[in-house]
């Protein structure tokens, strides 16, 4: 019985990686992520130049569940990529560099850096809901998605993964990303939301708006994965609200070959990853399947 999966040409020993933006900006972060037991590390979204991000408060746990964040794509810029990749290699763990930009050139610039640094893949962040110019404006327009993915995939040798967020045309954007050469899709990013402190009558985040993550978005993310898989049969990395084996299994049944965990790494990250992996193993056995890959998209067989 095997938990290994192939995704975007990478062979992973199990399907669980971290989601971009959970650590992943510095060498030390990579080592810490490796210690969580993930099968591949995904870096923080890296832009050509360093970005300061927003001033705190940038994050808050909501009384209605989940996390709201507006970090603002803080990152040390593309020069860090080499260091991040070489650190991951020390742990013999695949590394996917998350790439951000405002236009095709910026995406290419960072992706080339990842390529020449021997990263295993790039994940194009086309979907941040709160970093103006860097995010969901791109991913919600299938044509821009096509152009960005095409520009990158025709330049770099390593596999290109497109990360899309919740938007009306997410299925079209997915189709365009694949046409443009994306080997896989990561679905979804956070969902634009906000939190107002009722005692002071003021929005809490400095940026006012942020991205909602964690359990609240899980059923939305599963739906997006299901819809995109149904229309494309693409290789999908499911992301959004996964915190245990069952939330991961739902993603896999909807069509994901691998999953990313973000918010749930906040508490006891090692146990979280270990429990998901263990739980998936038992689940595959319960379903009497030989491998986890056999479970991919199974919910489509009615």
């Amino acid at each position: 019985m095997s938990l290994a999966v192939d995704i975007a040409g990478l062979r992973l020993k199990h399907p669980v990686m971290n989601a971009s933006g959970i650590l992943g900006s510095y060498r030390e972060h990579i080592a810490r992520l490796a210690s969580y037991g993930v099968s591949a590390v995904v870096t923080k979204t890296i832009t050509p130049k360093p970005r300061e991000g927003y001033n705190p408060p940038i994050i808050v746990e909501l009384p209605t569940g989940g996390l709201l964040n507006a970090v603002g794509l803080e990152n040390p810029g593309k020069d860090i990529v080499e260091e991040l990749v070489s650190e991951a290699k020390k742990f013999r763990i695949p590394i996917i560099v998350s790439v951000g930009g405002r236009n095709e050139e910026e995406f290419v610039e960072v992706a080339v850096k990842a390529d020449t640094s021997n990263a295993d893949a790039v994940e194009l962040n086309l979907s941040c809901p709160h970093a103006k110019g860097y995010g969901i404006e791109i991913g919600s327009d299938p044509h821009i998605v096509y152009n960005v993915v095409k520009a990158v995939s025709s330049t770099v040798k390593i596999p290109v993964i497109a990360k899309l967020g919740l938007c009306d045309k997410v299925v079209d954007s997915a189709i365009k990303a694949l046409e443009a050469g994306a080997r896989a899709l990561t679905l979804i990013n956070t969902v634009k939301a906000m939190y107002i402190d009722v005692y002071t009558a003021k929005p809490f985040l400095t940026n006012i708006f942020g991205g909602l993550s964690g359990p609240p978005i899980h059923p939305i993310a599963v739906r997006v994965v299901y819809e995109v898989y149904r229309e494309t049969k693409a290789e999908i990395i499911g992301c959004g609200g996964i915190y245990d084996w069952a939330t991961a299994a739902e993603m896999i049944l909807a069509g994901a070959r691998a999953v990313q965990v973000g918010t749930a790494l906040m508490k006891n990250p090692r146990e979280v990853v270990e429990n998901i992996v263990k739980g998936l193993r038992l689940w595959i056995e319960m379903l009497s399947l030989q491998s986890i890959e056999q479970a991919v998209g199974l919910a489509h067989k009615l």
Partner: protein
Amino acid sequence: MPLIPARILYIENLAENTYRLAVKPLYRVEDVKPFNFFMVWVPRVDEIPLSIAYRRRDVIEFLFKVRGEGTRKLSTLYPGNLIALKGPLGRGFVVENDLENILVLAGGIGIAPIPFFISRSRYRRLDLVWGVRERGELFNLKNLYPEISEKFSLIIVTEDCSYGICGTVLDALRSIDINAYSIILAVGPTAMLSKVCEYVKGNNVYVALGTMVKCGLGICGSCYIKSSTKLLCIEGPVFSCNEVGYHLRESVDS
């Protein structure tokens, strides 16, 4: 752990740029330990990490120094104003062993977490060396926290020799028989912590670091310890010198 709204009970100027803030959370706060800290929200201005300076039933006290925009604005709020707390964060650090002799070295506003540490710890003896640049930064710790005034002896050091011993905390440390202590704990500017870790070797030497804290939840990574997999907001802020030697050397240089 969602935000906890808290009402300012009083806010008092104790010394040059130094304030004592007492708040009453509107909801129950989890159990707090010494060296736990809160992210304190100054509405629409900033969110800043502050150590718990003291706790009396449902009142939480902070001691803080005005540094930039956030602390400045905080110092101008009034009793009755509402702020919000995220926490308690960090791992906490407390001593609970009647055989220990503890030496605490506090530099400047590094004194902030010490009253609560003293009030919650058990030990044989605790000596506190508090160093500041000049006497204007001082305030009367024992008067402020009479409940713990008998639990420690205080040595004050000023760099400009305006009060107490003359020199830095490091100068004072050099004149102390450190072998008399089973635990040494230093809180203050990075340069001071770095020197402490260089001067006293051993597993029993602890420092409370002050990295950038942006999320407090182990997610953003801004509080990482250089050449370590540790995060201050999860495993800190107190570390043994062994764990953070490289970090301290690097941070001081830069």
